[in-house]
């Protein structure tokens, strides 16, 4: 059997060399110039994300674990999956008052507790790298310390957002932070709770991922 790889590449190369494709320079000005005043960014993030059912609560560096606890109590959540290896995880443990929802550590491979994660967890909490004003999106780089499924499987996703970690556009985030020099296992933008409009164009939230996304803005 002829090798698919070499025959595909040879064919493409011959075609392209016979008739080169005319190109025009890529002008990124339209993205470079998309800017908001720093004060406007958070307002815009909120407005865009609230339009797709994201909820926002305010907190401070000191009181956010208590704020999270209050939010979860109100939501009736009994369990919170968290990443103990992160700074936020450590703060959560030390600031967690008695009688709050049970803290469940995500400190082992998912393969060891898949069923529990899918059936026994109400909420998950993650940090974020910031938010994007243009589209109203949270930026997450999950990894070894903060696993990917924390923001996907639990019915409620609590995301911590530092009020000064705000960007204008997705393009700005990746170019200013030089993402191209080293991409993580998984990079995510999250712009709301899971949703679908596949049944007669009617919006419904919580189809596969979280039903609620609650952003805790840390001032």
């Amino acid at each position: 059997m002829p090798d698919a790889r070499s025959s595909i590449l040879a064919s493409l190369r011959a075609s392209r060399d016979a008739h080169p494709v005319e190109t025009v320079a890529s002008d990124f000005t339209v993205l470079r110039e998309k800017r908001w005043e720093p004060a406007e960014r958070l307002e815009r993030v909120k407005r865009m994300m609230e339009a797709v059912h994201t909820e926002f609560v305010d907190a401070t560096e000191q009181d956010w674990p208590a704020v999270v606890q209050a939010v979860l109590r109100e939501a009736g959540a009994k369990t919170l999956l968290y990443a103990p290896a992160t700074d936020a995880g450590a703060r959560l443990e030390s600031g967690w008052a008695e009688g709050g929802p049970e803290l469940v550590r995500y400190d082992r491979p998912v393969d060891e507790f898949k069923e529990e994660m899918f059936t026994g967890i109400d909420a998950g909490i993650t940090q974020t790298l910031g938010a994007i004003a243009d589209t109203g999106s949270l930026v997450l780089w999950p990894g070894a310390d903060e696993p990917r499924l924390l923001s996907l499987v639990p019915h409620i996703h609590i995301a911590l957002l530092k009020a000064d970690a705000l960007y204008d556009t997705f393009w700005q985030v990746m170019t200013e932070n030089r993402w191209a020099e080293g991409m993580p296992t998984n990079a995510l933008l999250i712009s709301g709770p899971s949703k679908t409009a596949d049944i007669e164009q009617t919006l419904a939230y919580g189809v596969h991922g979280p039903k609620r996304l609650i952003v805790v803005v840390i001032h």
Partner: protein
Amino acid sequence: MAHAEIDFGKASRAALKDPQLRANFRRAMDGLMSKRAAQFADSAEWHAMRALGASVRLRALSKLPELLEKLEETCTRNGITVHWASTTDEANAIVLEIMLRVNAKLAVKGKSMVSEEMHLNAFLEKHGIEALEADLGEYIVQLDQEMPSHIIMPAIHKNTKQIAQLFREKIKEAEYTEDVAQLTDLARRVLRKKFMNADVGISGVNAAVAETGTLCLVENEGNGRMVTTVPPVHIALMGLEKVVEKLEDVPPVLSLLTRSATAQPITTYVNMITTPRKHGEKDGPREIHLVILDNGRSKIYADEELRHTLRCIRCGACMNHCPVYTRVGGHAYQAPYPGPIGKILIPQIEGLGTRGAMPHACTMCNACVEICPVQIPIANLMNRLREEAVHPGPAVKDAGAQASKAEALVWKGWAATFSSPTAYRMATTVLSAVGNAAPASLPLLKEWTSVRVKPRFAGRTLHDLARDRGIPDA
């Protein structure tokens, strides 16, 4: 292998008689068009963005062989296994081989149009492997053993009542409800069990970045993240044109895609996958495979004009704006890609023998050309394929298959008449005198009059009338 010609005409006539179907499409397409227009209300921004989008796609096509090699190199370095497939049969065989090696019984799928090209579900089923669609719309059409009728909204042809009935019939624990939230929740419960137990996750690719070896996926539901994160093995399927050169090319492409497709500034999730689970990481697949599929694309690339078909980012906006698609719906095309993009892509992949009718299912209204976010000259390509269909040549599979001696003769006569003043004068004089006496059932004329009123010739020719007004003959 010879196949019978696929009868678009018959299928579209049947679709036109279904008032429910027409109402479902009309309602959905009207909503999508107005919402998309609101997304691009700033005309200067729209023009700058689509010029940028087109430039990114053209640059990728101009370096296509190098970028695919680079993608293979970066992916391999990242730990992703890259496979190449010339045909859908080869791609299916690659997927099956991976499945058998890991002893897979259940695969969960995110939306992938390439997998529709491959008829992957049926293929895996034949080999005893369940392939379950997890995108809600795809899940609905799979339950009803149908094909998607739209590349972005697969179940757009059904209304809530029809879906409610389908769920009651096909899902054991279902109680009848027309409440969309409850129907969605039912699918959530059924599919979450499947995500948890699946051996393999299969996804498409919206853009693959050569620079970093990153696979980008956009979606709203979370099923795409589920299938690429929960099962131990992830297989990503991409058409070879899906590569972009740089990571910074991704934001404009995805922005144009989501705004054009569903009028969202961005989808709920943008999922960028670069490596399998690394040492110390607690979730994510341990293996990622990328299957790069040709299936006729390298032949499309060979033609200087037709290769612009490969700019497409699969937003589906051309469908939403197509007066033909809106009236006949997606199923009439009997193809994974319906609407304008389907009408230029499918005949090139499958050949003009079976698909010669598709480029004719177009009114040349240019609506798709105006809204295409990467400026594909769809109408020009449609016209080119109409010509290819009647002139044998090397550019397109089965070119010339639709050639008709009668039609060629008519055009020859037409050309002769219009290039000779004497012949033209004679013809118009005769037609204005006795043309109206020709019966509607005359061969050739019948093709027109079977669905339209017979045109009436005026009693006097235009030249005659002009002379009356004192305009001299040239």
